[in-house]
C-alpha cells in the first residue's frame, strides 16, 4: 500500500494489527513518523505498567462491616419512620427555600439579566461558527462521497470507517449539547471532531487525486 506521512494518523486511529504494521513499515523509512510512532507505542507500553494493585487485607473486612451496618439499619428502619423523615425534610425544605427565595430574588434579578444577555450572545457566536464549519464540511463531503464509493482500496475503506465513526461521535456529542447547551467542554469536543472530519475529507480528496495522477 502506498502510504504518505498524512496517512499515519488514520492508521493509528484504525489501530488494527494490519494498520499498525503498515504504519511501522512507513516509519522504517521516515524519521519524522518513526518519532511519532515511537512516542505512540511508548505511551501504550507505559500505560500498561500503570495497572496498579496492592495487598489490602483490611479492605474487605472494612467493606463487610460497612455493608452489615447498612443492611442492619435498613431492616430496623420502619416505613412509617421513613415517611415521617421525608415529611419533616419536605417541610424544612419548603420553609428554608421560601425564605432564601425572597431574600435572593431582588439581588439576582439584575445580575441574571446581564448574564443571560452575555450567555445568549456567546452561544450565538459559538453556533454561528459551528454552522459555518458544518457548511464547509458538507461541501467537501459531497465531493468526497462519490470518490469513496467508487474506490475499493483498503485505505479508502479505513477512511470510510473513520468517517462513519466520526459521524456517530458527532451525533452523540450534538445530542449531549442539545441537553445542555452551555457545556463548553462538549462544544470544544464537537469542534475538534468537526475539524478531524474536515481534515479526513481533505485527505480523501487529496488521496484520490494522488491515485488518479498515478
Amino acid at each position, binding site marked *: 500500500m502506498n502510504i504518505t506521512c498524512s496517512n499515519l*494518523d488514520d492508521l*493509528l*486511529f484504525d*489501530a488494527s494489527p494490519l494498520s499498525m504494521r503498515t504504519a511501522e513499515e512507513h516509519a522504517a523509512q521516515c524519521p519524522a513518523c518513526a*518519532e*511519532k510512532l515511537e*512516542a*505512540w507505542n*511508548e*505511551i*501504550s*507500553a*507505559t*500505560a*500498561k*505498567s*500503570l*495497572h*496498579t*494493585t*496492592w*495487598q*489490602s487485607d483490611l*479492605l*474487605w473486612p*472494612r*467493606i*463487610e462491616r*460497612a*455493608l*452489615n451496618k*447498612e*443492611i442492619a439499619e*435498613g431492616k430496623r428502619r420502619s416505613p412509617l419512620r421513613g415517611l415521617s423523615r421525608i415529611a419533616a425534610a419536605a417541610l424544612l425544605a419548603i420553609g428554608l427555600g421560601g425564605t432564601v427565595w425572597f431574600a435572593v430574588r431582588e439581588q439576582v434579578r439584575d445580575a441574571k439579566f446581564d448574564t443571560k444577555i452575555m450567555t445568549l450572545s456567546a452561544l450565538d457566536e459559538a453556533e454561528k461558527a459551528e454552522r459555518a464549519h458544518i457548511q464547509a464540511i458538507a461541501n467537501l463531503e459531497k465531493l468526497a462521497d462519490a470518490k469513496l464509493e467508487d474506490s475499493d482500496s483498503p485505505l479508502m475503506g479505513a477512511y470510510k470507517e473513520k468517517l*462513519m*465513526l*466520526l459521524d*456517530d*461521535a458527532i451525533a*452523540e*456529542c450534538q445530542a449531549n449539547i442539545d441537553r445542555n447547551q452551555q457545556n463548553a*467542554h462538549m462544544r470544544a469536543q464537537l469542534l*475538534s*471532531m468537526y475539524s*478531524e472530519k474536515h481534515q479526513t475529507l481533505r485527505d480523501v480528496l487529496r488521496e484520490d487525486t494522488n491515485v488518479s495522477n498515478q
Partner: protein
Amino acid sequence: MLQAAITGIPMTGPATSTEDRRLAASCAAGDTKIFEELYRRFGDRMKSIAWNHLGNAADAEDAVQDTFLKIHRAAATYSGEASFATWIYRILVNTCYDVLRKRRRRIDEAPIEDEEGVMIERPAPSVDDAKRMTLRKLLDELPEQRRSVFSLFEIEGLSHAEIGEILGISEGNSKWILFSTKKELQEKWNRNRSL
C-alpha cells in the same frame, strides 16, 4: 446455587444474562457472601481503576468501599441493560468523579505521589519510573472523560464496547476520544522528551 452462578460471570462483557439479574437481586437482598465473591473477582481491577483516577491507595480503597455500598443500595434498580460487571465499573467511575469534584474544592491539594507504606504491584516493572511519572502527570491534566477512556482501554484493557457502556457513550465515540487523547499525549510526550 448462587455461588455456582457467580463463578460463571466474566470479568467484563456487554452481554447480560438472567444470572446477572439474579446476582443483582442477591446484592439488593444484602447477601454478603455474594459481595465477597464480587470483591474477590473484581476487587483488584476496581482498585486499579480507582487508583488511576484518584492517584493514591487510601482514596482508591474508600472509593471501592463506597462502590460496594452503592451496589447494595442500587442493585434493586439494575435493569440488565449492561452486564453486571460493567454496571459495577460504571458506579465505581462515577464514585471516583465525585471524589475528584470534592477534592477540587479543597484549596491545598498535596501532589500525587506513590505513597509510602503501600506495596504497589505492577505487571510491567521494566518500564522506567521516569516515564511512568511523566504519563501519570499528563493523565492528571486530562478532563475526566478522556482520562477514563484512556485508563479503561490502555491500562485496564477493556474494549470500546465495554467503555461505552461504563461511560454512557457510543463505542465509536470511545474510539474517537481514545485517539484524540493519545494524539494530545503524544505531542506532550515528545515535547517532554526534548526538554
